[in-house]
């Protein structure tokens, strides 16, 4: 029987890790770490899991230890956040290039400075081209559910790539929410046993891992193969989401359309603000405004074709970005959405709304403002301003 509980997003993810019972968890035990590994370490101490818990001296070492343990053939998990992810950066590329199915939570928090510990997506955006699969979650339930699915996605033989589960710092990580936990046995069965393709420790089948490949080698071809594997994970993410729905009753796709079928105005958003946007859409619908939301779940790989199709019927779109790309035209989600829509026959106007940096609050009134801007664009057919800022003190 699933159990309904009151947990923070972090505690929910720690419970998922307990149920998954990974072979190795390597983590740096203090700030900017999360309470996920803090709680998980108590499960290790109590003997509730069989995990080898490696305490390391930095996030760079944490990811390095994960790479080693995964190449040795273990099921490996870790968690990080903000500056911690930034310090892992160079090793992230090695984990994905070695095709190691490491699963990691990234509790989305900004990068300093000025010094700020609050939510935005800048940390994940720094790793968006690192070859990791990135799945964004709206609430604690999704973070828990996605943790379980991530194991299956990462370890699928068609994928074999690391997965980063992203959810909003403090807003989700430290807030107590209501959610359902699956039975331990159901999770155990769903994730199954890990069967490594290679193991550094298998002396019968010696392999070279991470060799040198110079100017006249196959580096380019290798990276192209990795790119193909990343794109090829899209159907796997969808399949696993569907199968998870069969055991839990909660179905997941590459993205979530909300009241989008007949929508004229659409907001594209990732993370917890998607929930607030849905609330606003419900209110607007009561007043006869055909509003909808497209919540991105799989950001890497980006399901461009599917999203372009889902947005093909709308009259105006706002992409919402909880990060900045200084010097670019708008921020990453906007760039991705506008690019995905370029090949659609109808040219739908798209604007960018940058919001919530450094944890700036996003009340429903802010999202209402985005929709009224969209209504004005849909009516006139003209974009007055491409890149906009929500809740900026001006």
């Amino acid at each position, binding site marked *: 029987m699933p159990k309904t509980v009151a947990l923070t997003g972090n505690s929910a993810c720690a419970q998922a890790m307990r149920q998954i019972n990974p072979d190795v968890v390597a983590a740096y035990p203090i700030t900017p770490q999360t309470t996920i590994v803090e709680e998980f370490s108590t499960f290790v101490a109590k003997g509730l899991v069989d995990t080898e818990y490696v305490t390391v001296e930095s996030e760079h070492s944490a990811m390095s230890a994960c790479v080693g343990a995964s190449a040795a053939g273990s099921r490996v998990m870790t968690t990080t956040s903000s500056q911690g992810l930034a310090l892992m950066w160079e090793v992230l590329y090695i984990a994905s290039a070695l095709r190691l199915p490491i699963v990691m939570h990234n509790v989305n928090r900004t990068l300093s400075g000025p010094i700020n510990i609050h939510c935005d997506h800048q940390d994940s955006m720094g790793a968006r081209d690192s070859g990791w699969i990135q799945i964004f979650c709206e609430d604690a339930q999704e973070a828990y559910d996605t943790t379980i699915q991530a194991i299956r996605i990462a370890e699928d033989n068609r994928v074999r790539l690391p997965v980063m589960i992203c959810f909003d710092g403090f807003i989700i990580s430290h807030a107590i929410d209501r959610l359902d936990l699956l039975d331990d046995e159901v999770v155990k069965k769903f994730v199954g046993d890990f069967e490594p393709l290679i193991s550094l420790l298998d002396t019968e089948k010696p392999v070279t891992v991470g060799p040198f490949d110079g100017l006249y080698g196959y580096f380019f071809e290798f990276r192209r193969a990795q790119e193909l594997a990343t794109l090829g994970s899209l159907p796997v993410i969808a399949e696993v989401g569907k199968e998870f729905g069969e055991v839990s009753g909660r179905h997941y796709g590459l993205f979530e359309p909300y009241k989008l079928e007949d929508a004229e105005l659409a907001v594209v958003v990732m993370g917890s603000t998607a929930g607030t946007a849905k609330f606003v859409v419900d209110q607007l619908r009561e007043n006869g405004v055909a509003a909808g939301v497209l919540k991105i779940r799989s950001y890497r790989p980006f399901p461009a074709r599917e999203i372009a199709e889902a947005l093909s019927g709308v009259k105006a779109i706002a992409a919402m970005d909880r990060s900045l790309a200084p010097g670019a035209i708008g921020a990453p989600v906007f760039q991705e959405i506008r690019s995905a829509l370029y090949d659609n026959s109808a040219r739908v106007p798209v604007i960018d709304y940058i919001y919530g940096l450094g944890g700036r*609050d996003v*009340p*429903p009134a802010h999202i209402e403002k985005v929709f009224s801007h969209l209504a004005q664009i849909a009516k006139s057919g003209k974009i007055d301003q491409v890149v906009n800022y929500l809740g900026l003190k001006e």
Partner: protein
Amino acid sequence: MERLTEIRWHGRGGQGAVTAAKLVAETALKQDKYFQASPEYGPERMGAPIQAFTRISSQPISIHCAVTNPNIVVVLDKTLLSVVNVTEGLDPDGALVINTDMTPAEVRSSFSIEGHRIFTVDANKIAVESIGKAIPNTPMLGALLKATGIMDIDKVAEHIRDSFGKKFSREIIDGNVAALTRAYREVRSE
């Protein structure tokens, strides 16, 4: 109960505002309600003004933002009344529940508060006499329950016994339940 009840807690670090917000959420679960409890994190230190939020609803809650227009405001420390604008965004008919030895009428005139329904209780005195420490969160919870009727006091008491049981001694638990029920009885309205 309304479809969505929003509570803002004002306290100082160490007074248990976060624990109180959490207790309300966990008790709501036992009544099959939906809830969110979120502390506002900052440079936490003992004595610094802090806020925490609780939402309770009979429907799933999808919004993820700070509570800016609460139905209920709970003030765990009377010295905050002159430091923080505790009534900011509070529903004109909303309840303001304050830990103070003053009467609601005295609070209203001293701080020129217009509108809202004011409730007061001397939670520090109750906490010291029942628990032995001036941690006002459980008595304030009792006052909140009486002032607003958001939940059944017996359910909350039962939850305190269940959840505190793992961490605290029998004496502390009994003290907290006594503080809860005494504040429930002693809260003053206008």
